[in-house]
């Protein structure tokens, strides 16, 4: 057993200044990440094993971001299940879900409660797998006291791959593990690999399940996602590309260790340099030249960089978010001449600072295991010109009159969070334009003259 995160992290610089309490926490819980990953499997209903409030809160938090149906079941523990165990709740929940939703698979994740009472959930699921009347299950342990949504997501991806991927003869196909990116990002990644003619298992793929069309009748399980058959073939791919500069070891290891699928780790493709790296890796894997359309997209982006560069010179930015996204955004900011002065994340990786160094953003102050109070205090002291972060950074931005460009998760105070594109030349283009325009608008709105011609 580890020494516990508290002991480990009290040595880290800037960590909440040694306070016992978190104020305005920057973390949500691990099962939320797992639910998101399960949403990327076709025909899957997530089931949270514990008190029903966990499922309900996770649903509410995700609904407020994606604005999509979010049917997540619970095993609805009571006081007696807490004392005697949740075996019968789990069986009943699986039976009811199978009957009502006809899922291809039920994604089971645990809660603090189930993990603490010593519940042998995988053992119970093995027993229940013998019952032909119940849907098959996938399982991941997600105790929140060991990690936040970021870890829950990647642990779930790893667990799902461990339980589904099979070995066999190599296939001309790629595994692309994108991390907790937006549905729009996933759609763009799919477009990229399609343009290169590269058969790809993009996982998890909630691009449709969490950004679906208006429907005439309710879909108990939203259409879309990667199928169990595709996941089974993931062990036979020629290559896995895992996105996330901070993520280590990451779910790609499951496929390399068990099935010998070579693993390439890349940062999230935000910015020209980072996107070049992904495009080069994809083109090499496909054995085709980079398509002209993509080269043109890159060219327009660089041209925009030139148009906008002066508005960015000397401007300072604070970045708040999941570590992989925050690192990629910092690298992008450094690439365009913005100075990242602060990178704050609620997650605990111990690798964020090193990743920033490699991305040319090593001068930024780094706070891991942060809450919004301590991030807010540093932003107050550093007075950046712009904040890139989730909606939860809004109180800080408002108090200081600093513009906030909403990125990542959660975006609870705007619509269209699922359509926020961050990745690739196109996502970078959108971010770049919006970023420059946010700074221009702020300068314009706060100027005395208010020129309409800039």
């Amino acid at each position, binding site marked *: 057993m580890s020494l516990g995160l508290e002991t480990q992290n009290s040595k880290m610089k800037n960590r909440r200044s040694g306070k016992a309490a978190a104020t305005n926490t920057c973390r*949500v819980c691990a099962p939320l990440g797992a639910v998101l990953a399960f949403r990327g499997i076709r025909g899957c209903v997530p089931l949270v094993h514990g008190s029903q*409030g966990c499922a*309900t809160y996770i649903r509410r938090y995700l609904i407020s971001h994606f604005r999509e149906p979010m049917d997540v079941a619970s095993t609805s523990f009571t006081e007696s299940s807490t004392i005697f165990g949740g075996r019968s709740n789990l069986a009943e929940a699986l039976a009811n879900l199978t009957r009502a939703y006809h899922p291809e698979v039920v994604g089971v994740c645990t809660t603090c409660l189930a993990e603490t009472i010593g519940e042998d959930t995988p053992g119970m699921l093995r027993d229940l797998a013998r019952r032909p009347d119940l849907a098959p299950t996938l399982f991941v342990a997600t105790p929140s006291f060991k990690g936040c949504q970021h870890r829950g997501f990647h642990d779930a991806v790893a667990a799902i791959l461990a339980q589904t991927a099979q070995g066999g003869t190599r296939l001309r196909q790629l595994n692309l593990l994108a991390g907790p990116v937006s549905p729009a990002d996933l759609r763009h990644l799919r477009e990229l690999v399609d343009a290169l003619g590269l058969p790809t298992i993009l996982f998890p793929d909630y691009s449709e399940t969490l950004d679906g069309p208006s429907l005439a009748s309710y879909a108990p399980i939203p259409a879309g996602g990667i199928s169990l058959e595709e996941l089974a073939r993931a062990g036979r791919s020629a290559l896995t590309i895992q996105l996330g500069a901070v993520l280590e070891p990451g779910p790609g290891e499951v496929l390399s260790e068990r099935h010998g699928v070579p693993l390439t780790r890349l940062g999230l493709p935000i910015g020209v340099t980072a996107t070049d790296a992904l495009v080069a890796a994809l083109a090499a894997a496909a054995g085709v030249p980079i398509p002209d359309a993509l080269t043109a997209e890159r060219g327009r982006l660089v041209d925009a960089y030139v148009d906008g560069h002066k508005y960015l010179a000397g401007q300072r930015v604070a970045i708040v978010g999941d570590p992989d996204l925050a690192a990629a955004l910092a690298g992008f900011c450094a690439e365009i001449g913005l100075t990242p002065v602060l990178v704050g994340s609620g997650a605990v990786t111990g690798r964020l600072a090193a990743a920033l160094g490699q991305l040319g953003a090593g001068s930024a102050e780094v706070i891991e295991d942060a809450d919004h109070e301590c991030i807010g205090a540093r932003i107050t002291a550093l007075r950046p010109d712009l904040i890139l972060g989730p909606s939860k950074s809004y109180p800080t931005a408002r108090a200081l009159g600093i513009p906030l460009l909403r990125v990542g998760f959660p975006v609870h105070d705007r619509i269209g969070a699922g359509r926020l594109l961050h990745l690739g030349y196109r996502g970078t283009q959108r971010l770049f334009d919006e970023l420059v325009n946010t700074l221009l608008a702020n300068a314009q709105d706060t100027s005395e003259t208010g020129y309409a011609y800039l």
Partner: protein
Amino acid sequence: MLDARTSQVVTAGDGRSVVCDRPSVAGSVTQRACSFCGARVVLYPIGDALHLVHGPAGCAAYTWDIRGSLSSGSQLHRLSFNTDIRENEVIFGGEKKLQRALRELVAQHRPKAAFVYATCLTGVIGDDVEAVCRGATAELGIPVIPVQSEGFRGTKKHGYSAACQALAQLIGTGDTTGISRLSINILGDFNIAGEIWAIKAYFAAMGIKVVASMTGDGRIDDIRRAHGATLNVVQCAGSMTSLAKLMKETYGIPFVQVSFFGLEDCAAALYEVAAHFGDAEVLARTRALVRAETASVLPELARLRQDLEGKVAALYVGGAFKAFSLVKALRQLGMRVAMAGTQTGAPQDYEHLKELCDGGTILADDTNPLELAGWLADCDVDLFIGGVKERPVAYKLGVGFCDHNHERKIGLAGFSGMAAFAREVHATVMSPVWRLVPRHQFRVSSSEFRDAKKESMP
């Protein structure tokens, strides 16, 4: 529908009674939450208290500043405080961390009191929250009150009573000198978008003083002297009746159950309170107030009703009293309720709801997205009223929606609130976007097709 759920759904007029007040069926995708949620929603609006969630980060993150409860002073309730329990405390216990957190936070924020919410995790690791709170009360000089809100203890309803127990520890500890006989406490209004201010203004106009509002725009010192009031006025009956009963037993304060939603119920509430005091002047002022307030909103309601007449609504809300008021308010707008349900209704509530609703109305206890989606489609509903968790069910099917839960930012209580409600209903039901959704597109295109055919034929 799952077999285990059939007894919880009836149709008005079919002679059956709704089976309710029981734990949710595992795997049913209930819309209900846990005890922690219930306790947190009841106590949250107390603006000058420290609300410390003793548990993992998630429980605190999910309840951080999500509600529309306003405060006229301290905004401390809008911050999220958490002991952020990690593996270390799971192994060695979280009491020391709780103690340290209380010391830090009380020194930093100087609250009038602190509520410490127990969660599943700190419940099962065996932390003695009560003992830590006792110690902290003595050490820090403010009441530090444990809230027995471990999620597994039950549904939201259990959490409501845990919150009431916590409030009961404060009541009776303040000085009641100078409190007028014409005085009340308001229980179960949470000052969403300033609702309690509208209601307090009505009571002020009637000549009645409000001692404590529990808990909307609530203050610890007011709550401590709440036992000096003459009458308890309970709005959200499901959450606060247990406190009203307790205060009746302990202090002999009678209570009335009312609702401030809708013209009819709001007027009835004010008259009921006035009648309790048997004071001719109060009654005369109440009459004048109700007359003036009603007159100020009726023209607008009549105008909006012209468009809404005959439209069909469904509603699924937390408590039954809100459901009663909504059925009446929708009727005032000319709308028919095809389905009504609650998370926490009691048997007598559903009996009353049955009487209130037209025959054929579907009544459901503790329902879920699949059932709701089925009813929205089958009843061809124009409007669904619920909370954020129900919203995507309606929107995905191209059905108008109004949030009547705690996260809304529009005040819907009182006479002016009824006008705001009518405007919101009108804004969603009359939007042109529904013409384009698949549910209606067939209808639109087929009628357009008919029109086109008519034109083409000489």
